[in-house]
């Protein structure tokens, strides 16, 4: 019986503890802090009175943001650079209809320590017509600020094999019309 008690004691003493200390904060603490920042950030994104300046205020001044876009990779090394690139006056290349209030369809949020992932569908309008896109954003949150941000954007997804015949021909992969 003594050995059983010892075994039970040892089980209790080494009970699984999900808290993984990283610096002075536990993993759970970091997750809770990241969740709080992301909840405020997402609320600001979806506010009726949307303010891009307020969105950027969530970013650390040395924000590292990387957008993997269909025409290349865009890198930002500061919140100021991010603001100057993406504010409404400077994104005329996308031809968004600025009178139209876009909206998003949240699909999934994952918070894990300093990392947050947000998956959603964005709906908007360009001067050419409706805009619809799938988004995946990955954030790193530290000391209450978003310090890193990765996004992969490929509008007009769902293209099919035959539509891109020329690309497959160029790669020597075209196997005939489907």
């Amino acid at each position: 019986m003594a050995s059983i008690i010892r075994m039970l004691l040892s089980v209790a003493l080494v009970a699984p503890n999900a808290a993984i200390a990283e610096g002075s904060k536990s993993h759970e603490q970091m997750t809770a802090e990241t969740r709080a920042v992301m909840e405020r950030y997402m609320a600001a994104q979806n506010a009726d009175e949307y303010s891009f300046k307020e969105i950027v205020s969530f970013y650390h001044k040395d924000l590292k943001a990387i957008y993997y876009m269909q025409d290349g990779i865009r890198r930002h090394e500061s919140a100021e650079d991010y603001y100057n690139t993406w504010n409404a006056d400077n994104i005329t290349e996308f031809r968004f209809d600025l009178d139209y209030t876009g909206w998003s369809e949240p699909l999934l949020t994952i918070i894990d320590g300093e990392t947050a992932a947000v998956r959603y569908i964005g709906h908007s309008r360009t001067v050419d017509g409706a805009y619809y896109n799938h988004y995946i954003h990955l954030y790193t949150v530290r000391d209450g600020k978003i310090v890193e941000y990765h996004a992969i954007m490929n509008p007009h997804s769902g293209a099919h094999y035959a539509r891109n015949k020329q690309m497959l021909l160029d790669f020597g992969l075209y196997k005939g019309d489907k």
Partner: protein
Amino acid sequence: MMLRDSKRSSHLFLLLLSLCWISVAVAKPETPANQTEKTRALTLAYFERLSNADRSVADFWDKRTVLFVNNDGPWGGYYRGTANIAQYYRDMADMFDMDNGIRFELLQTAVEGNHSILHFRVQGQHIAGEYDNHYIQVYYWGDDGKLSKIENFYGWAPFLHLQRQAAENRASH
């Protein structure tokens, strides 16, 4: 003799009772934290097989699994079931020099409940040139350890660059 058998039986009973007690004490209830750790282990096992081009990665798929590929190219769209998903990956592999291998580098992981996400970099030799791209994949896990959905996002620009290169090569020959 009967007394000895009876003592032995009661010892055996006590031993079995103790073992049950220990197993009840040790068994973890399925808390959200446990679910997250189970998902983390499955996700890393999945990446291990995917990054080694190990065909047994298909063990994580079944007929219900849906693969969504978000890109602007010929492979964008939805693939349903093990056979279609395997065909997608065969088509991808056909474009690369698999003898020299493709290199995967895991950059970020996030897990919560039965969802997980991986950000990784892939480098290798594409049939049209050097390939270097970033991927973000989202995984939706079922209670049976199979994937109900995979969402595959990758930058499209490297493919456009390679397409331009392939077209130039064709024009010059």
